[in-house]
């Protein structure tokens, strides 16, 4: 992992996010039912989609680690899960704000997207404690990778099941804007925001991977210079 490419990527993500926001506020039409409040949709849904994909990518890197991918794969799995978990919190917060402004309630159980995220968030909250409770770095990486694979497979199933249960309990009357029948300006704005958030996510992942691996290399050099112990101290962060 090198610094190269990070600067253009950073600039690109800033530009894309700015364009996406500008389109959401200036180009996309006001929603007939919800008005200005509906603008949060352009943040809420793309973040959610990117977080889901991030969790699945974390699982794929976990599988790579198990198949002999080395500590770099474990580090990537860790970073994807970490970043996606931050996004999951953002989804819950933006969802609550949207719910409060649109329906006057911070939380509604008939929103399968939000309910699924709550469950996924709950599951991934155990990732860090799990890592921290295993001292041996290799055993820790192995257990964390298995977790990442299982949880990565769990995420789509969980979404499908929660949506199914909701569909049979409460036949949907309120048409969600994400149901596919979007007018072109809405769709274009939504897709722009989705790309912007994806690029921003990729940038943040690269920053964290680079930062973590640099820290480890530095510590390893320090240990070698100091003639200190050969094995890093206990940590929940992958030892690259």
């Amino acid at each position, binding site marked *: 992992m090198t610094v190269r490419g990070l600067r253009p990527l950073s600039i690109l993500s800033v530009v894309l996010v700015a364009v996406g926001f500008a389109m959401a506020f200036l180009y996309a039409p006001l929603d007939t039912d919800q008005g200005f409040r509906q603008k949060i949709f352009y943040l809420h849904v793309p973040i959610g989609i990117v977080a889901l994909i991030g969790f699945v990518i974390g699982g794929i890197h976990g599988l790579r680690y198990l198949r002999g991918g080395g500590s770099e794969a474990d580090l990537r799995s860790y970073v994807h899960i970490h970043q996606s978990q931050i996004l999951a919190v953002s989804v819950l917060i933006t969802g609550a704000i949207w719910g409060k402004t649109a329906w006057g309630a911070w939380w509604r159980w008939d929103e399968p997207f939000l309910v699924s995220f709550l469950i996924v968030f709950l599951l991934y909250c155990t990732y860090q404690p799990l890592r921290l409770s295993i001292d041996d770095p290799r055993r820790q990486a192995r*257990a964390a990778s298995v977790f990442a694979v299982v949880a990565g497979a769990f995420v789509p199933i969980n979404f499908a*099941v929660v949506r199914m249960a909701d569909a049979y309990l409460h036949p949907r009357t309120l048409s969600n804007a994400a149901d596919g029948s979007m007018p072109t300006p809405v769709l274009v704005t939504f897709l722009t925001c989705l790309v912007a958030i994806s690029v921003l996510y990729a940038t943040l992942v690269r920053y964290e991977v680079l930062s973590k691996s640099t820290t480890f290399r530095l510590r390893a050099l320090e240990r070698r210079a100091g003639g200190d112990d050969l094995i890093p101290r206990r940590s929940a962060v992958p030892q690259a």
Partner: protein
Amino acid sequence: MSAQTTISGPRAVLAVLRKDLRLELRSFELLPAMGLLALGTMIVLRFALDQETVEGDLAAGSLLVPLLFASLLGISRLFAGEERDAGIQQYLLSPAPAGALLAAKVLGLTAVLVALEIVLVPAFGLLLLGPELLPVLPELVLVLLLLDLTLATLGGIVAGIAIGARSRELIVPILVVPLAIPALIAAQQALAPVLEPGAEALAWRWPAVLAIYAVVLALVGSVVGEYLVED
């Protein structure tokens, strides 16, 4: 000299199951504990819901929540015997395939859950359930069997993940509960109409969802299982 023998997965699974069954029958501590916890939870629910009899949604929940709690006990204890007597090392010194140990644990846990339900379901019918139990027994058995397989598979994986963890008793429940939610949703949706006073027909999509989840977990487990047992 030393005739190098190989051993197939199914034979290794049978050997471990046989050994675990012997150990459980000799100590006979897990099953009674699970039964008592499940029964206690049912009594708690009777007062927490303030219902003398339950039907439909409440009935499904009053059966599934005690089952989940009891299964947590079983999952936490899944590798307890191995840890006490270095059983994983014993196993790894043999030529048996590493993944077979986890498979045996999953099947053993399924058997324990089935044994628990043989006691728990009649107790539930007697104590809490409003409608008659016997007419809906086949549907109930089918759904519970699928749920047992799902819980046991995810329990085996989670217990395997937590083998080397210091605070295992904390990690296991907080991992199992979120992972079990889709299975519980499906079981609840399947059982609620069946346990209504009029006993509606079983909606097949929910047992199908349970089966699909169990298969996915089993596939994931078969891919990652061997890594959990080694070193």
